């Protein structure tokens, strides 16, 4: 008999406590975002697809077209080509392509790069209708940033 009433009392109290929680939540600000119209700032640690680093001093890429990233990539999704330019001793970067459909964002390319020429971008809302849209020309992306 004592159990009967204590159950009633404890149960009733927990019901009131629950209502207090939800009533409070009802008047607290909304934490979600209406996505396509509003976007939240993405954390700088976010790993998007890789991008070439823009060297602020030279105002161009740091890449020396050594091909370390291409060789270290476990998914073989990077393609780097250099070319000889008249009057320069070393090769310069001519092509840097990334097949993002295969990339697993492991970051080995970023780590192995001897000149720290690669970084993760902050691109996260990626959507397209074809597979080819994810074959990025990373060099072109950088050139767009130079201007």
């Amino acid at each position, binding site marked *: 008999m004592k159990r009967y009433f204590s159950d009633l009392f404890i149960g009733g109290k927990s*019901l009131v406590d*629950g209502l207090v929680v939800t009533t409070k*939540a*009802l008047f607290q600000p*909304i*934490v979600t975002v209406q996505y396509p119209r509003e976007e939240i700032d993405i954390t700088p640690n976010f790993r998007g697809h890789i991008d070439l680093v823009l060297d602020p001093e030279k105002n161009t890429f740091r890449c020396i077209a050594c091909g370390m990233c291409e060789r270290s990539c476990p998914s073989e999704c990077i393609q780097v080509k250099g070319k000889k330019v008249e009057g320069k001793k070393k090769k310069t970067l001519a092509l840097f392509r990334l097949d993002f459909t295969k990339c697993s964002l492991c970051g080995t390319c970023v780590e192995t790069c001897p000149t720290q020429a690669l970084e993760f971008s902050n691109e996260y809302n990626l959507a397209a209708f074809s597979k080819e849209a994810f074959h990025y020309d990373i060099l072109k992306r950088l050139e767009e940033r130079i201007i």
Partner: protein
Amino acid sequence: MEILSTLPPELIRMVFAAIIIISFIFLNAVMMGYLERKIAGHVQRRPGPMEVGFHGILQLIVDGVKLVAKELLVPVNVDRTLFRLAPILSFTPVILPLLVIPFSEKLQARDLHLGLVFIVSMTSINVMALVVGGWGSNNKYSMFGAMRAVAQSIAYEIPILLSMLAVILMANTFSLKEIVGAQQKIWFILLQPLAFIIYIISGVAETNRAPFDLPEAESELTAGFHTEYSGMGFSLFFLGEYTNMFTVASVATVLFLGGWHGPPLPYGEYLGIVWFFLKVYFLLFFMIMIRWTYPRVRFDQLLNFAWKYLVPFSLANILITAVVIKL
């Protein structure tokens, strides 16, 4: 116009009342659906519907258009007659209680002497519709939902009637208008708080709302009795549910919260409806908050709670009320 004058005025009045009530039922369902989704959103700290119209106000109308446009699918091996009959059976009787509810002193379609009995008998037809739908669907989940609905409504019909009886003992009448009239000085919620609590709990259970939504428990029975229904078949069940909620809340307002009584307004005989609706929608808001607060009860808990707590307490309440009145 000349035809109108030959008809008995009482008939015209009833036709008008029925039209207003039916259109109000649809309006109420749209408002409640919107309110429910908005409150659900804000309780979970998201905005709820925001896309269609200002703050998603037209969302339910768009949903309604979609439901009307959908194909009425009848699965193979179902009992076609029962399957078709169930949504209509669920929707039609819920209109009738609104005919006897006094929205204000003069806004009442018909003042029956046994108004409360009429309401109780009409609302209990709803469970019949659930059984017909669940049985006719030829689906084990629907059948389970229907069986649960029956057990639940038998268990909760008793405390709901007993808690009403306490008020009837005090008001000494079954007429809703006179019950409200008896609360001119003091609302019955102050004299019968226990009966009010029992009524609200059983009322939520009667309308099959969470936390007592076992007949349509999504996580256990896909959708319970309306698993097989699509388009308007499904939405008629929904209309029935929301209208039942409105009926339960307005009966609670009439019995306990003083009906149309409130601070005096000009044309109080008619504008009492403002107070009535404020009270009703407060109760409905409360019912929605309950839904988004509490988890679903287990079936044994559901029945235990009805038979072990609500029934004894309401019986004791009636006994005390009767003794006090006799003294």
